[in-house]
């Protein structure tokens, strides 16, 4: 028997063999058992999900002479001839190669003749989306009312290209991407059958990389299986997938956080030299960043925390930075498709991720300088998070000195695993500002607020719509801090053009140039709480909120990772 690729050797021959797609299997099997097989089916779904295989199994099932339930026996003459492709009555048509109206006319003529050796003629029209419009139209009448002895099965990966008139004449089945768990199970079966031993992680990697296509998974498995050496390791799998070792990825993250850009360049160039694909690197890097983020959130209790290097790296990064990096690289990943200098694009994306260069979410440009040097300490501060009962500035060095082991949830300090990213940096800026705060200026601004809003409205009505939701809460001679309840409003106001308008109007109204800084009310309140014991309360009296303000970061984290992975520990104050 000549050698065949695994994905061909393991093509499903019965419905039971078909991985996933329970909705398709069940419906088809019921139809066969009841003898109610329709005259035309349309199978659509992504590559490698079993469309053509299901079509062939169905063709066998309707023609099998010794059917067992709904399953074909695969032994009778009919089954065997269909499997080998020798049957004259079951035709697999490559619609991408026979896409013209002429070929369809020929097909239409043949449909009229009764089957030669089996009970039902089956036409499997694969890649049917490639038929021309005329060809589709020529097929319409045949498809609607074919002779009783024929069965059409159309298969395609691009159902949107099929005219509605065709779709409405068929029973449509949507094949779904196969879950990694199911792919994994099939891979295990194949390995057992081939007598290969394997590392579980290697199979996982392959199952994930296959992206729902079983054919891809089997292809990768075959490529990764080292014939002779007999053991399939995670390292080999990574090699075949063109990926990079996780330890090297962690190293890159470490260097980035430490702002050792030269080392970042060296690492990247080494990968390029080894022929790694830029989009693959981005993909893997995103995965690692996500895992690091989970390690951070779970406070070291997740499964990833036990993998070598993850814990240490996670301790070095700051949550805000991780989120930003994930977002930026995500954009790069999409962008890489269009750029024809992908390596350069990845390089620039990475280099602009150095913490001091990214700038904090709400902090103005001036904080970028010191923040860079502080990032290590800031990360420590976020981790230990003792800002709740001490002023922010002295907290950072103290926190950095405190070993993380001393943090116990509920032991007086907050120690929450979920904290607002960059909170400490924001607090630093606010503390610095509040030391120069001037109640007189604030009053002045509050007095002019209505007039200000009016003027903004005259200039740019959108800006007014955003700004009206804000409230001036703190002012120094040259900076005005506004608090917003909603993140959307806050972000909108911080956009360049909106802020420009506001600052221009402020300058006109107040006579001096002032910078505008917007933050969330929740942040402002938590800042006030930290301030309360240290200095006199500022401005208006804030009711101490018994329930913490709805923390939208927490909400989005829960949405991202699922409630079961996130533990929220409230600040006790």
């Amino acid at each position, binding site marked *: *028997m*000549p*050698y*065949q*690729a695994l994905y*061909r050797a393991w093509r499903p021959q019965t419905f039971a063999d078909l991985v996933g797609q329970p909705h398709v299997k069940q419906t088809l099997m019921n139809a066969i058992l009841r003898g109610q097989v329709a005259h035309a089916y349309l199978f659509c779904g*992504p*590559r490698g999900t079993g469309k053509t295989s299901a079509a062939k199994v169905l063709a066998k099932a309707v023609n099998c002479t010794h059917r067992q339930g709904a399953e074909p026996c695969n032994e009778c003459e009919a089954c065997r001839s269909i499997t080998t492709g020798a049957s004259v009555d079951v035709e697999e048509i*490559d619609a*991408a*190669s026979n*896409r013209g109206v002429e070929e369809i006319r020929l097909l239409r003529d043949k449909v009229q003749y009764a089957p030669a050796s089996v009970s039902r003629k089956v036409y499997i029209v*694969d*890649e049917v*989306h*490639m038929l021309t419009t005329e060809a589709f139209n020529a097929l319409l009448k045949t498809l609607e009312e074919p002779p009783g002895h024929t069965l059409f099965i159309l298969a395609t*990966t691009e159902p949107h290209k099929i005219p509605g008139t065709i779709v409405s004449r068929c029973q449509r089945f949507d094949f779904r991407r196969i879950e990694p768990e199911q792919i994994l199970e099939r891979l295990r079966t194949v390995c057992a059958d081939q007598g290969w031993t394997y590392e579980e992680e290697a199979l996982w990697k392959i199952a994930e990389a296959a992206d729902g*296509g079983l*054919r*891809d998974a089997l*292809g990768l498995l*075959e*490529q990764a299986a*080292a*014939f*002779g050496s007999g053991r399939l390791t995670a390292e080999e799998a990574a*090699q*075949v997938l*063109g990926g990079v070792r996780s330890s090297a990825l962690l190293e890159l993250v470490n260097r980035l956080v430490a702002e050792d*850009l*030269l080392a*970042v*360049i*060296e690492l*990247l*160039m080494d990968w*390029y*030299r*080894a*022929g*790694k*694909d830029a*989009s693959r690197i981005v993909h893997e890097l995103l995965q690692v960043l996500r895992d690091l983020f989970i390690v951070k959130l779970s406070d070291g209790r997740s499964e990833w925390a036990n993998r070598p290097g993850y814990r240490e790296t996670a301790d070095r990064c700051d949550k805000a930075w991780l989120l930003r990096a994930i977002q930026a690289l995500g954009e790069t990943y999409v962008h*890489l*498709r*269009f*750029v*024809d*200098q*992908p*390596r*350069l*694009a990845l*390089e*620039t*994306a990475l*280099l*602009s991720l*150095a913490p001091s*260069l990214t700038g904090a979410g709400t902090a103005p440009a001036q904080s970028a300088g010191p923040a860079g040097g502080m990032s290590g300490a800031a990360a420590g501060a976020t981790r230990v998070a003792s800002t709740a009962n001490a002023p922010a500035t002295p907290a950072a060095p103290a926190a950095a000195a405190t070993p993380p082991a001393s943090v116990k949830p509920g032991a007086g300090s907050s120690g929450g695993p979920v904290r607002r990213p960059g909170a400490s940096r924001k607090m630093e800026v606010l503390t610095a500002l509040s030391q120069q705060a001037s109640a007189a200026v604030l009053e002045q601004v509050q007095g002019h607020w209505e007039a200000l809003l009016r003027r903004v409205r005259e200039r740019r009505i959108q800006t007014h719509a955003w700004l009206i939701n804000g409230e001036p809460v703190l002012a120094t001679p040259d900076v005005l801090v506004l608090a917003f309840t909603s993140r959307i409003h806050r972000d909108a106001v911080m956009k360049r053009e909106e802020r420009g308008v506001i600052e221009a109007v402020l300058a006109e109204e107040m006579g001096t140039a002032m910078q505008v800084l917007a933050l969330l009310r929740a942040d402002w309140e938590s800042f006030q709480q930290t301030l309360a014991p240290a200095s006199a309360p500022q401005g208006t009296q804030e009711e101490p909120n018994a329930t913490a303000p709805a923390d939208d970061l927490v909400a989005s984290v829960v949405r991202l990772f699922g409630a079961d992975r996130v533990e929220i520990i409230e600040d006790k104050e």
Partner: protein
Amino acid sequence: MNTSEAGATRRVAPLSEWPIQTDLLGRLREDIASGRVPHAMLFVGEASQNRRFVNFLSQLLLCTGEPAPCGRCAACAQFESGNHPDLYVLDREGTAVKTGQVEALQERLKLRAHAGGRVVYVVHGVDEMTPVAANRLLKTLEEPWPSVIALLTAGSVRRVLPTVRSRCFLFPLPQAGSAPWDDAMPEERGAEPEGDPWFASLIEPVIQWTEILLKGAEPAVILADRLVRAAEDAEFSDVLYVLAMWLRDLMHTSAGDSRHIRFGEYRAQLKEQSSMTNVAELAKAVAVVLETRVRTRSHVAATLNAERMCVRLQEVFASVYGHRRPL
């Protein structure tokens, strides 16, 4: 069955004699030696590199001697004279491989091999084929006759039709040349003679232009005009390619890297210009240039595109200019 039919083990030239060596190819070599030849392989890399390797591999697969490719057997002789009857090569006609060529290939594949051994077909540039041509390959790729082997090449995996990609074993090929970390040259430039690269005449104007940009002495419109004029007898997208490379070199210099520099001969300019700005700004600037280059492909008026880029570059370098903000 013939001994060269798939399934038989045979001796294959050691990896060190292969034109390209990677771990994956090492494994491919073992597979071929043990008779497990994948029926469809996709090689991804630079065009010239793809060609070189696929050429070698098809000879290896067709050779009937040992160790393959022996260079002495009749098959090798036929191959070297360029008329092996069981090798079928589809190369781009105009911009890409056309549907008609695939059709002819399918006709040919209905016949068995002349020599009774393998039939090898090569399709170059599957990432640039029209959807019609690429789809047409699908069924041919998936279940060929035994001993029919497909060798496909592409410049970028992500542009290959996913259904085609899913039917092949993928082999990335590392890049040739002095700078393996560089992106592939623009395709149409790839084949130019060595020694005098096509960008030699562009780099100096680009360096001068960058200097003017960094000094902020001129408004964006004039800057853009200068750049378009620098490109008088070259494609604008090529100028952008060189500009992106130069900015990248500046970025590396600024980060303290002196090993991965393309235009090392302009050391003085690199030093001077990189000292005026910083890594973050340069990274942003490269991103702007890359984006502009993508836009050149979508029928945007070149001047307009250049002006937009200059305005954005000046925003990036705003801090370099300080108070001397150009118009």
